[in-house]
């Protein structure tokens, strides 16, 4: 692929990058900034793209760094959000009996690959992520998408390790319930 084609392909990645940056940062302006900086870095460094990985993988790698930079620029605001969210008590009492056992049987989700192969599944996952409170979504995406260690997440967000574990647990429980309801529940027959 020549440089001109590479530049065009990098530009075409913008909507995907913006979608991911919004999910992670939960702020449109920050997401726009991170994506713009990513595209500039990618276009400036396109000569350094070795072609050994996919172009998209290379650009997403740049985006991950720009998102972390954005977290640092907005550290004060993000840490206030995280501290507020960490103070929330969410017991999920509706899921458990008084003696701590589950109220209802979780569904069998079947072969993950069959869900991963469907674009609509990722639309539903994105919807479920969108429904999380911003601070919970950020901590979850930092851990699972940016793949940061919890010590680094705590440093970036200014929360304790215990708070980060509780927030990650809350995010996983909510996302699991959301996917079970919106994707894995049997569809009602059309009338």
């Amino acid at each position, binding site marked *: 692929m020549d440089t001109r084609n590479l530049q065009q392909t990098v530009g075409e990645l913008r909507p995907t990058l913006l979608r991911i940056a919004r999910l992670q940062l939960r702020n449109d302006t920050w997401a726009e900034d991170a994506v713009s900086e990513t595209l500039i870095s990618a276009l400036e460094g396109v000569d350094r793209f070795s072609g050994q990985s996919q172009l998209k993988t290379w650009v997403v790698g740049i985006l991950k760094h720009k998102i972390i930079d954005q977290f640092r620029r907005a550290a004060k605001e993000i840490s206030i959000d995280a501290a507020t969210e960490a103070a929330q008590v969410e017991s*999920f009492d509706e899921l*458990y009996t008084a*003696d*701590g056992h589950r109220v209802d049987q979780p569904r069998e989700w079947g072969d993950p690959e069959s*869900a991963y192969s469907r674009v609509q599944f*990722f639309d539903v996952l994105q919807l479920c992520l969108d429904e999380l409170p911003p601070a919970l979504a950020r901590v979850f995406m930092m*851990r*699972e998408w940016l793949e940061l260690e919890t010590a680094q997440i705590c440093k970036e967000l200014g929360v304790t390790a215990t708070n980060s574990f509780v927030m990650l647990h809350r995010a996983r429980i909510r996302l*699991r319930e959301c996917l079970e309801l919106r994707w894995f529940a049997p569809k009602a027959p059309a009338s």
Partner: protein
Amino acid sequence: MIGRWLKITCRQAQVLMSERQDRALGRLEHLRLRLHLTACDWCSRIARHFRFLSEAVRRLDR
């Protein structure tokens, strides 16, 4: 007596199932969780769901 000491509820197990994805569990925590998952099909299923979620999120950019 020992059985009671090692026994945890589904609620406690699900906290440990989440935390083991973020930190190394202590030996006792690990043993309690393992014993619970051996006996509880519902929690084993949720453990698979948590792993499924991690993998799904990593594929969001593909």
